[in-house]
C-alpha cells in the first residue's frame, strides 16, 4: 500500500558560517596550549568573534611566572615515539622544546607570550577560569595584563552563547 508521506517539518537552516567561538584551553605544555592559540588566531583572521578560556594547567599560558617557560611534554606523551625513560633525562624536555620552537619560528608561529598578546590585540577576550584561579591560589595580579577577566563556568556559558564551543 502506498501513501503520501507527510512533509517533514524543517527548522530554520543554521547559517553556513561560524560567527563566534569560545575556545577552552585546558592543558599545560607546549603541545597542549598551541592548538588553542592557533584555533583562536585563525578564527580572528576570518573575522570570527573569539573568547579564549584558560583552565587548569592551560592557565600556564596566561600566568606571568610560567608563560615563557612552557615545555613540550616528553614524558607520558606517546606522540614523542621514544622510551619514557629517555624523555625523563635532565634537559631533554628543554631540548625538545627548543627544537620544536625553532621549527615553529620557521613557520612564523610566535612564541606563546607573543602569540597570546597578538590574539588579545586582535580583539579576542582572554579569560581565566575562576575555579582554577582559586585552586592554584592565584589572583588577577598573577596573570598577564591582557587577561580580560576571571570567569565562572556560568559566565563562560553566557559569553559563549550563540557561538560554537571548542575544547582543547
Amino acid at each position, binding site marked *: 500500500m502506498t501513501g503520501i508521506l507527510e512533509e517533514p517539518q524543517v527548522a530554520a537552516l543554521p547559517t553556513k558560517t561560524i560567527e563566534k567561538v569560545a575556545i577552552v584551553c585546558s592543558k599545560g605544555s607546549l603541545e597542549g596550549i598551541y592548538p588553542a592559540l*592557533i584555533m583562536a588566531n*585563525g578564527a580572528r*583572521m*576570518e573575522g570570527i568573534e573569539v573568547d579564549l578560556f584558560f583552565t587548569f594547567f592551560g592557565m600556564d599560558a596566561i600566568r606571568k611566572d610560567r608563560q615563557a617557560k612552557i615545555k613540550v611534554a616528553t614524558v607520558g606523551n606517546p606522540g614523542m615515539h621514544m622510551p619514557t625513560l629517555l624523555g625523563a633525562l635532565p634537559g631533554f624536555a628543554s631540548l625538545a622544546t627548543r627544537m620544536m620552537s625553532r621549527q615553529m619560528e620557521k*613557520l*612564523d*608561529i610566535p612564541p606563546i607570550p607573543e602569540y597570546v598578546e*597578538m590574539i588579545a*590585540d586582535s*580583539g579576542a577576550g582572554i579569560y581565566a577560569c575562576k575555579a582554577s584561579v582559586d585552586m592554584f591560589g592565584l589572583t588577577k595580579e598573577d596573570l598577564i595584563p591582557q587577561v580580560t577577566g576571571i570567569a565562572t563556568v556560568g559566565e563562560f556559558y553566557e559569553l559563549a552563547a550563540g557561538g560554537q564551543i571548542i575544547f582543547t
Partner: protein
Amino acid sequence: MMLTVAVDQEGFLLDHTEWTRELAEEIARENGIETLTPRHWQVVEFMRDRFITTGNAPTIRALGKESGVPVKELYQLFPKGPAKLAAKIGGIPKPRGCI
C-alpha cells in the same frame, strides 16, 4: 563605473596584474569599507609588495610587525579579517596559511 576583472568564487582577483587603485576602492566598498584611508593603503600596499616579491602573502604576525600598522589597528581597519581582506583589496590571492 563598473570595472570588470576575473575573480574566483570568493572575489579574489585571478590575475594580480589587472589590479588598479580604483578597483581596490571598489572591492573595499563591496566589503564594507567605505573609504580607504592612508592607513588602509599602507597595509594593502605592503601585502601587494610582499606577494609580488616573495610569491606569498605575509602572515598576520609579519603584517603586524613589518607593515608599520600594529595588530590592534589592523583589526580596526579590517574588522572582517585583515590579512584576507587586505589581500582581496590588494588584488592578490587569498592567504592560505593557518598563522
